[in-house]
């Protein structure tokens, strides 16, 4: 009788441990350095204090307030930016006249990093919520428009030929032909847009905001609370990771028919 398979767990566990070891090592070094008192406690904050601050911020609702403000801005900005981006990109790729009209301007404005527009946007929208939503929308607009444009343009001419031959109406043409053919590339563009949106939002909140993770860190800096700043860095990184990771999963899920 064969031995029951024990699954991949034993071999995976050491691999996992090896991957985590360097990070654990750095954290231990940090803790030793913090406790040794070479630097003042306020400058090199012990990890347990960062953890305690994080817990305190989480339990008194402060973190939830900042986090929900940031995520609300990110979600609405990303939604607006990517919807406009995908439709503009598709329109530029499908119609020669739209391409002629918009492409030159699009390629020019695309050269400017979105954070360079922040001072201009402050002048136009003041420092209200709308300003940050516009920043995120702009940051997610360009990658999604570009990816959609390239994806639609790369559809083989033969596909479109067949659709023309069968006199496929516009709606099914978009949903049954253009959409599935472009899914992976467009999703990659959306993921890039989301990452850029997050980066630009943090910058915008550091610069001008009354709430949000960026503002929480900026306040921590002004009050010399390194533990608050570190907690903010940790949460910012975690959100960035979760956003990217979940988009990768969606991408894999929606493009699985390609490889299958």
């Amino acid at each position: 009788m064969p031995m029951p398979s024990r699954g991949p767990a034993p071999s995976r566990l050491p691999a996992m441990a090896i991957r985590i070891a360097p990070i654990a090592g750095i954290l231990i070094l940090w803790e030793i350095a913090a406790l040794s008192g070479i630097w003042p406690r306020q400058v090199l904050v012990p990890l347990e204090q960062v953890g305690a601050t994080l817990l305190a911020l989480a339990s008194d609702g402060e973190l939830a307030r900042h986090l929900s403000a940031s995520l609300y801005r990110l979600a609405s900005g990303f939604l607006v930016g990517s919807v406009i981006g995908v439709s503009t990109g598709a329109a530029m790729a499908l119609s020669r006249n739209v391409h002629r009209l918009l492409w030159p301007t699009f390629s020019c404005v695309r050269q400017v990093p979105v954070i360079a527009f922040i001072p201009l946007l402050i002048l136009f929208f003041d420092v209200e919520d709308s300003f940050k939503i516009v920043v995120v929308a702009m940051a997610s607009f360009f990658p999604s428009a570009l990816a959609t444009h390239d994806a639609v343009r790369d559809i083989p001419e033969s596909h479109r030929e067949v659709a023309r031959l069968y006199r496929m109406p516009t709606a099914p043409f978009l949903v049954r032909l253009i959409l599935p053919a472009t899914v992976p590339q467009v999703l990659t563009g959306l993921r890039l847009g989301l990452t850029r949106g997050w980066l630009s939002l943090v910058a915008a909140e550091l610069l001008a905001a009354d709430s949000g993770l960026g503002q929480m860190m900026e306040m921590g800096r002004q009050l010399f609370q390194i533990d608050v700043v570190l907690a903010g860095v940790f949460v910012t990184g975690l959100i960035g990771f979760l956003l990217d990771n979940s988009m990768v999963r969606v991408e894999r899920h929606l493009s699985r028919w390609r490889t299958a």
Partner: protein
Amino acid sequence: MKRLASFALALAFPALVLGWWEWESRQGLGHAYAFAPLEQIARSFLEMLADGRLALHAGASLQRALTALLIGGTIGIVAGVATGLSRVLDRTASPLITVMRQVPILGWLPLVALWFGNGDGAKLLLVSLSAFYPTVLNTQKGMQAIEQRYAEVGRLYGFTRSQSLRMIAWPSALPLIFTGISQALAFAWIATIGVELLFSASAGLGTEMMAAQVAARTDIVLVCVACVGVMGFTLNQLFALLRTRLLRWQPATAK
């Protein structure tokens, strides 16, 4: 004729935007505050060009970006070669880089400000970090993706470790290293503007934009935005040219 039509269409959109802008700027003082008249934007541009302000700030930003590219890029390439060659180093350094990279560059800014102040050193540190990530990742990928047949040849000829590094691994990794540097150049430029916006000390296009925003000078802000865009574009194009020149011996793999 067709050419003319597409040219006219290309100009139609910016012309429309500019026309709308000019119209808005004439709708009373409240509007002129945000919508600076086109004529005034042009005048500010010429003024900033003439009194050397534009050159000063653009030069400071450019110098910052390129210095940081040199620092971050060099460290990135060295680290990429090291982690690409050694499994131990790869396993030690790669998880750390992956974890660090999750935090947007400007998210480090408050921490860096507290530890190192908001002087030029702190700015350089952050911009260098932004140039470090793409170079280290691409170099590492390049070193690890050596074609088996070349490695085989090296073994047949009994190459020493340094010989195979110099004659096989390095040249075959070069295209990806260049990709890393060109990404680093773009990131460094963005990060430069970002840190200058947030650390408003000493010269730089970002600092100038922030000052102009506080003074409600849309015209100056726009001149700076255009300058940032043109400079970023020019840097990328120049580097692309340099890349094709330096890699012309490798037409097939370079892309």
